[in-house]
């Protein structure tokens, strides 16, 4: 057995890790208690097998690409970073990217990841036309909106529990350049931030970085980043159409002692970040897609900032109606506590496509907390607010929510379970997350 954890490095659990080299070997690798794992960017226990974890990043081939339509068939282990580096210069990008480019296509489908364009363009799964799935009972089936559609909508956002995603056909977005025309808006408080996101509905990309230690009148003060794909004519003279994505250079070499992150250091960082951003507010400027979409990717192993014990990301979505009051209550609790680190992310979401897709029309708030003290109890307290508001938590980032919280947040769960059971009657596919939240004990 091997000790395995997600990107948040909590929990750390035992699971045998296999890296099969052929689809036949994937099938042979499945035992009761197996789940697929992509590049390990899920924060908690979603991509850790109850017994065996099947690493899929070796499957990184592109099967075919149509440069007229942007349709691509690929193996599930291809990373979005690879897609961007390879097809960006040819004028195509993924329609949806999350906050890191180091996720696999299979993982992006299983989590139905959302990006800064979810309010207008939906999630990753919307651009997936079909999936080659190896079910828990050993069948390999092609699933799409038309063919095996139940399995398709259970697999998009299904957190790996319908089977192992082997291949997918999806559409890429034609772009003229790899640059984003960005506008920064500074918002003095939560109301202003929500108004700015509302007004940003017509923008392709929008996201707010909230200073979550600001309190009182400053509660919810933030910087809103709107973005559009830049046309070639908007680039500076002599600029490359497609910027080069550097591999993470600066790495966090060791686990920082937990003392590094404290109320004072976070407050100082956030003050500086807010002021620097506010200074850039106003006019448009053109930035490379890499810092725009993936601000943290430039620091390798940034998860080590939180120390050896790891961290928890708490990402909830609150339905639009009544969101303002609930978000204010959550931010107030967090600001009083003072150790949520750096900047929180607030953004608007639209409808999710899969049965267990996280997004619903409303506002999502993502917060990071180091694992220490009474943090688990504190997050339970926040969960009560989320549940009362009809919200839910993002499974790809979860490591600790209760069954009750999960069941309250995902009304399509019964339907998902029925489809899962039909694909895998013996429930061979099980993750640590499914044991925690789904499976009968």
């Amino acid at each position, binding site marked *: 057995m091997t000790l395995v954890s997600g990107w948040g490095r909590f929990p750390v659990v035992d699971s045998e890790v296999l890296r099969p080299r052929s689809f036949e070997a994937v099938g042979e690798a499945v035992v009761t208690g197996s789940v697929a794992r992509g590049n390990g960017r899920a924060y908690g226990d979603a991509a850790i097998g109850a017994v065996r974890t099947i690493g899929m990043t070796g499957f990184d*081939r592109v099967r075919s*690409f149509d440069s007229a339509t942007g349709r691509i068939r690929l193996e599930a282990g291809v990373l979005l970073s690879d897609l961007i580096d*390879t097809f960006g210069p040819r004028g195509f990008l993924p329609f949806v990217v999350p906050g890191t480019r180091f996720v696999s296509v299979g993982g992006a489908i299983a989590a139905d990841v959302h990006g800064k364009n979810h309010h207008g363009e939906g999630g990753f799964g919307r651009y997936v036309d079909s999936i080659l799935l190896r079910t828990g009972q050993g069948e390999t089936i092609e699933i799409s909106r038309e063919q095996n559609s139940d399995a398709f909508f259970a697999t998009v956002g299904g957190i790996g529990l319908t089977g192992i995603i082997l291949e997918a056909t999806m559409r890429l977005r034609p772009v003229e350049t790899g640059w984003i025309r960005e506008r920064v808006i500074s918002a003095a408080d939560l109301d202003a931030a929500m108004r700015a996101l509302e007004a940003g509905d017509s923008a392709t990309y929008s996201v707010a970085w909230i200073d979550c230690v600001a309190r009182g009148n400053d509660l919810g003060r933030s910087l809103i980043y709107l973005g559009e794909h830049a046309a070639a004519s908007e680039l500076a003279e002599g600029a490359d159409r497609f910027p080069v994505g550097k591999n993470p250079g600066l790495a966090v070499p060791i686990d920082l002692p937990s003392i590094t992150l404290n109320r004072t250091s976070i407050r100082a960082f956030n003050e500086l970040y807010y002021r620097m951003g506010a200074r850039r507010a106003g006019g448009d400027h053109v930035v490379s897609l890499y810092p725009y979409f993936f601000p943290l990717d430039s620091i390798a192993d940034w998860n080590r900032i939180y120390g050896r014990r790891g961290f928890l990301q708490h990402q909830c979505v609150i339905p639009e109606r009544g969101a303002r009051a609930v978000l204010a209550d959550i931010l107030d609790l967090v600001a009083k506590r003072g150790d949520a680190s750096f900047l929180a992310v607030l953004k608007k979401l639209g409808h999710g496509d899969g049965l267990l897709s996280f997004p619903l029309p409303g506002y999502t708030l993502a917060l990071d907390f180091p694992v220490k003290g009474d943090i688990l109890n504190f997050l339970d307290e926040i969960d009560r607010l989320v549940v009362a508001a009809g919200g839910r938590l993002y499974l790809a980032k979860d490591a600790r929510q209760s069954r009750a919280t999960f069941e309250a947040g995902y009304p399509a769960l019964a339907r998902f379970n029925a489809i899962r059971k039909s694909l895998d009657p013996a429930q061979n596919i099980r993750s640590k997350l499914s044991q925690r939240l789904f499976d009968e004990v």
Partner: protein
Amino acid sequence: MTSRKTVLVLGGSSDIGRAAARAFAKAGYDVGLAGRDAAALEPDAADLRARYNIEASTLVFDVLDTASFDGFVAGLPALPDVVVSIIGLLGVQPNAESDLAHATTIMRSNYEGPSLILGLFAEKFLGRGNGTIVGVSSVAGDRGRASNYVYGSAKAGFSAFLSGLRARASRGGVHVVTVKPGFVRTKMTEGMKLIGPLTVDAPVVGDAILNAVEKKTDVVYVSGKWRLVMLIIKTLPEAVFKKLKF
């Protein structure tokens, strides 16, 4: 006819072979992938075509079947600009100590076959007056170690072959590159204990091979740290070295 340059990768199904093929294809080369099972290489050829809009083909090549080498080279549709041998077999040292057949396979896979086929290409390239030959050898060939000297000695022979070939071929316009990757995370090293800071991923080796071809480098240690490490290991007196657990 295409005016693009061509590279032939011998051992195209290995992780380093795939990475090298991608690096060359990305740089605009047409690629031939050669291995024992050509059908198994087809998905990789399709990957190169889809990604880089180049031509990619697959060929059958078995490094142990030296009798087939003349026919293999003669049967190529065109002589490539660059030929890269990634072929190698780590084997299991303790087995090789008592099993002559296993030891022979390791020696032939790492020395005899790669040397003979690259030597054959060198003759053709010299006849044409240009070409680049790349042999992927190993830091293990720099000094025999108790833990893998069968493999290491074959790599040492291969390194010596490449060095001699380079001296001769350079006068005829043909360049020979020796690549010593050090620890690489691949199928071959899966499950082995590798030293993190000295270990690289296959794409790093692929890029290093392309870079060495384009810059006409002679000997490449993929991670510069290995040059220093091996310098120290090579200069240790034998009396000291044999006592080290290494």
